[in-house]
């Protein structure tokens, strides 16, 4: 078949074949069964999402609900096992910004009251998951529940404060490489998805702050949404 196209090209260049091709179909090439696709053996996609820390105990809630946000993006690989079961791996970046309440008595990460204060942690995260699909379907992602676990390296740990000085000027202080923040994190994850859209939940089993510093823990549960990036 390759030869036909070669000869067509040659003849076209010689002016021997100047007719317009209105329709062309190569059945042989189309007959190769694909192995990559949303419900085929292998599938790789991008994803982007965000979530909000949810604290289950308001008394112990040290973050400002709604403005604290978790942003993540990355690549996801899925290996189809059956039409109803798949497993996969994610590799991505998560940036969690915990905006802290400034009410006395304040303990996270210290007792100092600021105008604004946040702890921002960026992590390189890898996760593994098992996907349970609901419903028979063709080459579609379909409806699914992902359950899995993740582990990450907190490669960036920042503490930011904003205060107004006596002259009315804003003073921003950025402290990085925080000693009191753990370098690694791990936890559980779940996703409930329909095609490219998913509701996500992550529960951090590890602590953010090192035990020796005795700082109260920030919310462990993050609930959000995610959009799959694929054709």
């Amino acid at each position, binding site marked *: 078949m390759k030869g036909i196209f070669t000869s067509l090209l040659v003849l076209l260049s010689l002016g021997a074949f100047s007719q317009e091709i209105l*329709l062309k179909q190569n059945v042989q090439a189309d007959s190769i069964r694909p192995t990559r696709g949303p419900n085929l053996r292998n599938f790789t996609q991008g994803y982007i999402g965000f979530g909000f820390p949810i604290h289950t105990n308001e008394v112990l809630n040290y973050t400002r609900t709604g403005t604290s946000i978790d942003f993540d993006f990355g690549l996801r690989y899925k290996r189809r096992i059956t039409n109803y079961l798949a497993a996969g791996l994610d590799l991505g970046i998560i940036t969690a910004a915990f905006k802290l309440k400034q009410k006395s008595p304040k303990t996270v990460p210290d007792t100092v009251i600021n105008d604004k204060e946040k702890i921002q942690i960026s992590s390189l995260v890898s996760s593994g998951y098992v996907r349970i699909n609901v419903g028979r379907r063709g080459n579609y992602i379909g409806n699914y*529940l992902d359950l899995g676990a993740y582990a990450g390296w907190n490669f960036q740990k920042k503490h930011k404060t904003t205060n107004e000085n006596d002259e009315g000027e804003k003073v921003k202080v950025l402290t990085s490489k925080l000693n009191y923040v753990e370098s690694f994190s791990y936890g559980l994850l779940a996703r409930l998805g329909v095609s490219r859209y998913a509701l996500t939940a992550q529960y951090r089993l590890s602590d953010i702050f090192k035990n020796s510093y005795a700082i109260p823990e920030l919310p462990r549960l993050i609930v959000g949404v995610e959009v799959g990036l694929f054709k």
Partner: protein
Amino acid sequence: MQKIKLILLFASLLFLLPLLCEAQQHWMVYFKDKQRKDFNPYTYFDAKAIERRIRTGIPVDDPSDWPVNETYVNEVSLMVNEVIITSRWLNAMAVDADDSQINTLRQLPYVLNVEWIEPSGMQITSFDDYDTAINPNESEVLEGQLKTLGVDAWRKAGIDGKGLRIAILDVGFDQADKVPAFDHIRNENRLIATHDFTNRKNGDYVYYGNGHGTEVWSCIAGKIGDFQIGLATGAEFLLAKTEKSSEKYSEELNWLAAVEWADKNGADIINSSLGYTANRYFNWQMDGKTSFVTRAANIAARKGMLVVNAAGNDGDDKWHYIGAPADADSALSIGGIDPATGYHITFSSYGPTSDKRMKPNVSAYGHVIAAAPPGLKSTQGTSFAAPLVAGFAACAWQSNRKLTNMQLFGEIEKSGSLYPYFDYAHGFGIPQADHFLNKDTTSVQPTFRIVESGDSISIVVNKYSVEKAITSQNSGPKTENGYNNETTGSQEYLYYNIMNKAGVLDSYYVLDVTQPKVLTLLKSNFRKGETLNVHYAGYNISVKL
């Protein structure tokens, strides 16, 4: 403690989810046997169904038509949540049941097998352009959609599908009881029966929901004043609503129940402008035996009915190929032609089937003018090509009632404008009335020749044909609006394909013809045993390469 609780919650979800998925699902319960008992085909079937069986040599009293054992039906009904349908053909019941109920059913001595048939999506194979006005372009389309199928010849012969009964399976027939395009059918009591298979209470009212079926019906038999929209204006009709709403999802079971109902009520032809594709299946499952509706379509054909099905509208998307049941070997699958060009319309799904059988079988306009509740409208989809051919089939069958359904199937293929040439975009082309009305045995005059020189092989069209083609493309039937109301889909273009030793096409092309030497190929580039097939202006040549 909180951590442990959450871990337990995750674990519980993991184990409970499969159970939740399995609960309350649809199952097909097949029985081991059935008995003739009091079955009397002459009281069960409509007289038309008896007539069809006798005419086509199908046994009038066939075990597949015997009722499902009443005792089995009663017992199973008490053990499940709901009975969806009971199928004589499959000797089975479709039921809604949970796992424990199914486990109990499996233990019954008379149950052969239980198969999970989770409900899923049937896609309407059409889409609208929402243009309801009839402008000059659309008038030309309306005229062309029947002219290409030989409306003048059928009219002259006084053939309009009279005596044929056509069942239409569709998503809904909104206001079809009021649309004036069907006045002639209603006034002559040729609407025999209706049934709503989406209503488990066995309702007969089908004139609600989506108007897709109304438009499809009009492409078979609609008429506004003296203007025909479809060819079979004299036929009788059965209307079956098999879809729940304008949503694109519904169940294959309704389709099966509807074809059994159509058989019982004496249908000769079934028109189905519905198809399953990527929502449920993979391309390689379009093999003529995997999907439920495909198997049902083949059984319907074995009962003597001609099943006409739209090829699908996935030609320009990822799916690309025909859907189910258009993959059934006994279903006449219909591709779409673009009225503006006279060849394949881009969205019309391509063949072949995954086991490399030719599909679609023939083609008709995929852009039509149809009768919708508010008036005539321009609409697109192979949904409308199929009913145009269903109307043609009714006329063809009326012209020769001795044909069996599969003989008619073959004759419709032979009547194609490209026949014996074919490809997987057009099948054998647009069916021609002349094949049935004027069996012309005079040989076609050559319109081109093959010139072999050394390793090269050239296709050279005759001077006359080139002039004719250029004239017709520039100023002939093609109007200033760009529509070609004289086209038969084969007159002005050169079609060629490369066929391998197994008779399967490796590639195929349609070329515009603007000079005598249309194409030169090098023989050394082909594999041994391959054949070059060429069609131009009604003439065909095949050359072994």
